């Protein structure tokens, strides 16, 4: 698995990534997904990571980038045939 930006989050990231890959390949890709089953693990991972993102000021950069492109996204991510 890829490493986390924050070494202290590696363990929880690994748990989440493993769950996600299983869900993605066994449920999502087969069109059999009803909910994101790995969400509780994602919350734990997010909690660990958000502290680091805040400490390094990355959260602001990410927010700016996402706000900047909200309108673009509406256009860009529209359904394709």
């Amino acid at each position, binding site marked *: 698995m*890829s490493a986390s930006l924050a070494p202290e989050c590696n363990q929880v990231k690994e748990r989440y990534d493993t769950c996600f890959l299983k869900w993605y390949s066994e449920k*999502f890709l087969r069109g059999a997904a009803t909910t994101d089953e790995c969400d509780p693990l994602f919350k734990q991972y997010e909690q660990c990571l958000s502290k680091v*993102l805040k400490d390094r000021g990355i959260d602001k950069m990410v927010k700016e*980038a996402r706000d900047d492109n909200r309108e673009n996204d509406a256009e*860009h991510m529209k359904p394709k045939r």
Partner: protein
Amino acid sequence: MVKFYSSTDTYPYPFPAVTLAYFLRYPNPYSTHVISTDTIARDFDPDTQRLTTIRLHLKRSKLPSAVTKLLPRSLLGASATGDTQSYILEKSVVDVKEGWMDTESRNLEWTGVLSVIERQIFRRPVPDVPDDIKAFQGMEGAARRHGFLNFGGAGAGAKVGVDLNGETTDVESSVTLHSHVGETWRKKRAAASEGSSSSSEDEQTQKVGFLRSWGTATLQRNIEKIGLTRTLRSQPNAREGMKVVLERMREGGLVGVLEGMRKDREAILQGRDHIKKDGPPRAGEE
């Protein structure tokens, strides 16, 4: 001015496998500069069956000497040798029913100097047959892919499945390079002269002075040109990286990919240790 690069390619792998490889593409032997990858947001919409993912990558890079010559190093936050790290924000949406994955990656820092937006759209090719037959084939294809993506590792059957079904995935890639260098500084200077005094005003004036000697448009054009040269050089590596991951998947399923990643990650860590200690590999290492 804006510079634009685009290309198309076809992977000899089924669409679901390609989307999985996209999520698993780091680390690979062609991406030793990628330090970390984190998922920062993920949303599954059960109604549309679409999955949206936002990830943050940290990449090590070396600024080309051409850039460090054009711009003051202090401005770029790079070391004397031009070493720097950069954050990349990646957004992707997968629609497995409709058979497309839309991705976009952009740099988070120095976007004023050079903003690089890379887009890749993966598509399951639409067969030239009536809709009812298509729907049936879609289900049949899903059943075959089932084996290919077996979490426990693909056996001989899954391998045959991939080779026999001959499914492919089309990909369109594009990179847009845009330099705004000089523009924000002009804005900031205007704001400063309106009364809101800035502590870095001297610095701003210095930068503006530096730029005036060049001409903003020329500088922007040159930076975009350098960015394009780099893009042309890095694109084949990105493609090769995806192919390595897909081959691992064909050979050993998801387990095979994860095992490959583990080895690549070790190699990257060891490589970094060697550089740090500046010594030969220890016994037992390859």
